[in-house]
Structure formats: structure tokens, C-alpha cells
């Protein structure tokens, strides 16, 4: 399944617009943020595990990036 670069960018732009545009209706009121406040709901709960995984996948696979910058920094591209 080949994804064209242009399609990818368009997909990204529309996803972002969907979020930003429809954003005012989405969300939780300030008194309903109890679950979001939990440590277990943070996007990255264990940075060192995430870092090790990023490093392993960066050196064994062709793709990189996603949550943040790709691993880099080592001669294992």
C-alpha cells in the first residue's frame, strides 16, 4: 500500500484542522479533568522505556519519528 507524499500531507493537514477547528466543542470541563490529571494518562508515562524503544526501532527498521524526533545520534541508521 503506497501512500503518496502529497496524500500524507493532506491527511495531516485535515486531521489538524479537524482538531483545531472542531476544538471548541471538544474537551472536558475543568471539573471533569480528574482522569486526565492522572499520571497514567500522560502521553509518555515512561520516558526511558520510550527512549530505548525509539533507539531499537530506529536501528532495526527503516521508519523513524512519530511522537518526537527520531532517535539519531548513533551510527546505527
Amino acid at each position, binding site marked *: *500500500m*503506497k*501512500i*503518496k*507524499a502529497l496524500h*500524507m*500531507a493532506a*491527511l*495531516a493537514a485535515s*486531521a*489538524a484542522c479537524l*482538531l*483545531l477547528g472542531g*476544538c*471548541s466543542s*471538544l*474537551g*472536558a*470541563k*475543568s471539573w*471533569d*479533568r*480528574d*482522569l*486526565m*490529571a*492522572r*499520571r*497514567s*494518562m*500522560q*502521553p509518555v508515562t*515512561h*520516558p*526511558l*522505556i520510550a*527512549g*530505548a524503544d525509539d*533507539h*531499537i*526501532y530506529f*536501528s*532495526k*527498521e*527503516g*521508519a*523513524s*519519528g*512519530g*511522537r*518526537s*524526533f*527520531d532517535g*539519531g*545520534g*548513533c*551510527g546505527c*541508521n
Partner: protein
Amino acid sequence: MQLRKRKGRLTTALGLMTAGLFAGAGVHAQQASHNINDDTSTDAGLTRVDTAVLFYQEAGGRVKATEPVASFTLNDDSGDVLHVKLTADTLTGATPNGAAPWTHDQTFITPSKTQGQKTTVTSASGNSTLVTIPGTDVTARQYTVPANTLPVDSGFQDQRYAIDLGYTGTRDNGDRLSVGGSYSSERDYSSMSANVGYARDFNDKNTTASVALNFESDTSKPFFGTPDPLTQMSGTLKGGNRQKTVLDLVAGVSQVMNRYWLMQVNYSLGDTSGYQTDPYRIISVVDGEGGAPVRYLYESRPGSRLRQSLYIGNKLALWGTVADVSARLYHDSWGINAETLEVAERIPLTSFLYVEPSYRYYHQTKANFFRDYLIDGQALPENASSDSRLGSFDASTIGLKLGMRVRGNDELYLRAASYQQTGTSHPSYAVGDLKQENLFTGVKATSVILGYSFAFY
């Protein structure tokens, strides 16, 4: 002034109320939550230290790595954060040299680390032999790989040290500005980078938009110099060091969808230019009829790579558990397209223990210059590499994480994972006797990470 012995009714009641207030509560800052599963404490004003060690082992005697890492996050009163991460990495084991397996033994020659010894005495080093190239006084290393096995180069050992620094400042209006840099050094490679980022909240902090830019400069300095692309493998010293530079942009939006669902979308664009070839890797040139290896050439990869990815991640707090579901689409100018899907479910067991099984599925298509081998007599392509990480394969990871609250919001954690790549071992286009050989060189690996995270003032 002395306290009188007889206390009034109100004072007695007050004393009881106060005892109740502090009895259950205990010392709140240290025991921010009795339960690791609904802990909402923050690290404001605290210093958090997170230390872990990764043990990684590939099957078949291939790469083995041990990587201790420590990170320090200093949070001050006003939301500013200083972050330092130190990593050390020790790699040993065998790694595929890029040649295809064959029905007979194969011998490879590569420059030796013990250059300058003007002697014809040969000695053993690991699985290889030191030889002198005839007609020269150059010492090279020669090793033989048995028939019907994946050619690997053993005695590969490396140590890497890296430091990452980052600082995030919070302005009065809540905007966050980040700067950071990193430096990594191993014997034959060094890298340094600098990054800046900006993040801002909207919609009563339900939406966060962020953008970041990263610049990286790497130097490849193999001990024997850098071979010219697609030249014949030999034991002599080559040219000098090579560089590459990377520029990355990540733009993202994080949105609280409702009380229990957080979604994040990131778009990344990266441009790498410069030397991206693996200077140690070769590719077999084989006979077009029988498939026998004729010669070995050093591989070559393009000097320019434009990468894009779209990442969508979700955290859902449902039915007492937390689910993490994410997907990533990737495409680059080398022709690699990849899809990734990851799911993890954090399940509380007791108030201080949880378990988190996870699964990751990955699929990639090959780079347009990927070749299992080259055919003798055909025109040489501009670029060619047999590195499995540029080939077509699927990969699955099964993982299990365990977390235990030790004291306050300190945690002991363990994550074990089993990773396996699967690809086409016997492609239909294989020539001659190569049809019988397993041409897929992907990895199967196990990793264990053990870590401890604690915070203090």
C-alpha cells in the same frame, strides 16, 4: 504562659477533627496518592531521577547490547524544567556483513585494526585471521563464513556515550519555549544536535499546539576510513571521514476529546543530506546463472533522504484501565512506506501494582535501491544495499510491563519484550542455488528494561 489542663468542649472537638485531618492524609507530598492507579500528583518543585538499564539480545549470536541510562528532571516553582539525560551503550556480537549466504564457505577480507605491524606472522583474533596482503606490508583481517549460513562479522564491539540536555521555560501566559541539545560519541561515530520548540494551550487547556525544530550533524569515522561506493571489498585503508546533516520539523496538536480520551496528532518532516551509507557493509555480486558469489562490493545509499510521518496517538481511561492506541504512517524519498500500529493496556492489580501488556505491528516496503544481491555483468546501479532494515518485512512485538509503587510517587518498573521481523526468505526471483538459501536477514530479539524512578526536593 502555660496550657491549662481543662480543655473546653470546642477545643476537644477541634483536636479530634485535626487528628482526623492528618491521620488519613499522612504526609501528602510524599504520599500524593495511596493508589498508583489514580495518582494525580505533579512533579512541581520536585527533582525527579529516573534510572534504567536495557538488556537487548538478538537471536543467532547477533547483536547484544547493555544500555544504562539516567535522567534528571529539575522542576522549579514557575513551571520551568531542566532535563539532563546520560546514556552509555555497550554493543557486542555479530552483525550481518551484507553478503548473501551460499552453498559453500565464503571468505571475506577487511582492514585490520592492528595496522602498522610490519610482520608476516599471522595470529588469530576471534574467528578471524590476520593476513598480510601480498605485495604490500598491509595487515588485513580475513574471516570465513560456513556454507548455508548468514554471513556475519563477529568481534564487533562498540561503546557509546551520550548526553542530552533540555530546558523548558514557561512564560506568564502559559506558553512554553524549549531549547535543547545533545552529543553522542562512539569510537567510529559522533553526533551533535540542537533543537527548539514552542507549545501553547487553547480552549481552557483542552488543546495544545506545538512545533519543534531539530538540527543534527553527524560524523562517520570508521577506523579504516570510508570506502568509495560500490568498489571492491579489500583489506587496504580507505578514504577519510564523512558527514551528514539532518533537519527535522515536528508539528502537533494534542486534544482532550472528552473526560476519558486524549488524542494527539503529530506530523513530521525530515531532511537528511550527506553520507548515509554503512561503511562496513558489502553486497554480493553473483553469477546470473548459478548464483555463486563473484565478488563483494561496498554498498552505497543516496546522499539525500526526505522523510515524512503522520502519527496519531490516543490514551483512553475506560473501565478502570488505561488504553494506549496509536498508529503511524511513514513515507520517505528512498521509497520506504511503513505502517505501525501499537496497543497497550494498563491494568491495575492492586493499589500499588499494575501490569501493562502491549502489542506492536509494523510493516514496511523496501527502499527502491534495496537488493538482496547484484548480478554480475549487469550495469551497476547508482545505489545498492542489502541491509534488511531497508528491505520489505513485517515485525511484531509482544511486550509486558510491570510497575510497582514503592514510596510516594516512586516506581520500580520492568518491561520485557519479544521482537520478531519476518520477510521473504526465498523470493521467487532468486537465481540458481540461491533459491535454496534463506535470503531474509531480519532480526529476532528480546529486550528487558529494569528501571527505578524517584522524586525528591
